[in-house]
């Protein structure tokens, strides 16, 4: 079979993180070399649109589907369709409520939520008040990262840490900023930690704090994803970010997909497998689930990470 076509179904294209994943896909060695062709689909933040696009991808004879699903349940059809069509389907980044997929290459959001909250708990020594900037209500991201947040907070002594406010800012920096501004009005000097369920909202919080003339040094702020601005913020010591490895998730998915298309003889070509050699096991590409590890971004590793983004 001459060139291999893989369909990548993104839930949307507006977030920087999605851009990183997209970039990672095009940077995969075999894609670069042209042996593998990638078709990107923009799900426009609508589960149904993604299902329709899966239909389209199958119709146009793609050899595999990689889906970054909009919804935990509503996108299960994609897996079923792929299975009926007999092509491998890899779920990446977010999870799907089924076990019928060929494999999933994800980072456990509960873990991510735990890590960021845990970091904050340590910094504030398990005492004081925190606020949580949540993702869109009911989304799997919000639910699972939320669970992680709770878990970490629960590990502090009963009632030691109080969650003053929690509300969605829809992953958006602008909304996060406004929300934080209003909270600051209300809880002047009482907030010691800000848990942003993603970096954008955390960055918004930083803007809000600085906007009121306050200094971020008086707050412990954390976010998830490790978008570029967040890395810069970490570098200038304003926050901490839990890096979700877009590159790892996407290139990992492509390798797994290729393994199922080509078969035994395929050897993974992405360097993620060396990068996480100790935590991540290729297992001949047959594992049902690959957990791409999180990286807590700190002064030590931030410069290296920023390099990659250039």
């Amino acid at each position, binding site marked *: 079979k001459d060139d291999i076509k893989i369909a990548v179904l993104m839930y949307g*294209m507006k977030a920087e993180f999605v851009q990183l994943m997209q970039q990672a896909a095009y940077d995969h060695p075999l894609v670069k070399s042209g042996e593998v062709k990638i078709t990107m689909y923009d799900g426009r933040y609508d589960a149904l649109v993604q299902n329709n696009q899966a239909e389209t991808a199958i119709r*146009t004879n793609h050899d595999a589907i990689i889906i970054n699903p909009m919804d935990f349940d509503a996108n299960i059809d994609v897996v079923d369709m792929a299975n009926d069509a007999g092509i491998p389907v890899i779920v990446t980044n977010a999870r799907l409520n089924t076990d019928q997929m060929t494999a999933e290459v994800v980072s456990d959001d509960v873990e991510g939520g735990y890590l960021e909250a845990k970091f904050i708990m340590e910094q504030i020594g398990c005492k004081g008040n925190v606020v949580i900037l949540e993702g869109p*209500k*009911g989304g799997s991201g919000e639910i699972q990262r939320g669970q992680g947040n709770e878990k970490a907070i629960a590990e502090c002594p009963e009632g030691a840490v109080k969650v003053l406010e929690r509300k969605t800012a829809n992953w958006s920096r602008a909304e996060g900023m406004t929300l934080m501004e209003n909270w600051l009005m209300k809880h002047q000097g009482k907030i010691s930690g800000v848990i942003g369920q993603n970096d954008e909202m955390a960055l918004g919080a930083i803007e809000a704090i600085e906007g009121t003339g306050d200094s971020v040094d008086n707050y412990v702020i954390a976010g998830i994803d490790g978008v570029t601005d967040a890395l810069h913020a970490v570098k200038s010591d304003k926050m901490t970010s839990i890096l979700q490895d877009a590159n790892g998730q996407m290139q990992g998915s492509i390798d797994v997909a290729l393994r199922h298309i080509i078969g035994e003889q395929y050897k993974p070509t992405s360097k993620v497998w060396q990068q996480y050699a100790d935590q991540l096991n290729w297992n001949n590409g047959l594992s049902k689930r690959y957990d791409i590890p999180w990286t807590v971004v700190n002064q030590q590793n931030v410069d290296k990470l920023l390099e990659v983004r250039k």
Partner: protein
Amino acid sequence: MNTSVATDKSLRLPITRLKPILHKYGIVLAFLFICATIAVLGEICIHNGMWDSNYFLTQGNLLSVLRQVSINGILAVGMTFVIIVAGVDLSVGSVLALAGIVSARFVTNSSNMLIGGFDSPILLPLMVAICIGAICGFLNGYIISKFRLQAFIVTMGMLSVARGMTMLTTDGNPVSSLDRGFRALGNSYTFGIPTPVVIFAVIFVAAWFLLNKTVFGRYVFAVGGNEKSAQTSGIDVHKVKVAVYTLCGVMAAIAGLILTARTGSAQTSAGFGYELDAIAAVVIGGTSMAGGLGTLTGTLFGVLIIGVMNNGLDLLGVQSYYQQIIKGLLIVAAVMLDPSRKQSR
């Protein structure tokens, strides 16, 4: 408000009678133009080996386009009535979600027991959905007409309220793993045609008949064309408006039911922004937002144009940035291609 300037009065006189035909003609032209373009591009793809065959023109693809448009289609039918009475309904997306999620809960509760021979997985939720849609629509219409408020702002309020209620019913969680029998509504086939398409077709024909053949239909045009003289002629403007918005709400609810059945889960975020697509379809179809002027056939083609556009661009694997640009241009182009356009504003 007929703001078309004197110069095109002259245009009108000759085409008065043919207008409906010409009107359809214009939009059909636009539609065919777009299809042709995609087909041709497809051939090119085949030529340079990107496609093995012309995927676009396969029966399978065209059927799935139809299925994909059926939801927007149903919304657009209701929206056509609303826009003809010189209104607009921004709340359809939210009402769709609310109806979807509430009725979905009745599915999960009612698996497989039978109500009067019907298998209730469909019947009960359907009734629930329709009630919800009717209530939301009724409220829209009643407030707009009773207090003489602008449709835009009232339905925008409903957009917000209905979305909030949706979240509230399940505390933001989706309702999932729905009964097979119910899901058939979305993913089964009837006489080899996807069920949603069949439903859409039935609704469309009924609505067409209602708008063009019945007294109510006449009144809808009258109220939209000149509310004051409609009243002078003894038409109960209030009733007509309320009825129209209620109808639109019910359509949204049915669309919500189908969407839920198709995706197999009712999400709180469902239908977000659908109102724009529905309105776009109606306007592309030549219905004037100034009211009093419009056809359902036009709307049908408006819906198809949008659907084919999305499908075609995905088939061609056009990058999403370019997709948006092209889509924007095509929409405007489609409207320009329509000669009858010049009349309405």
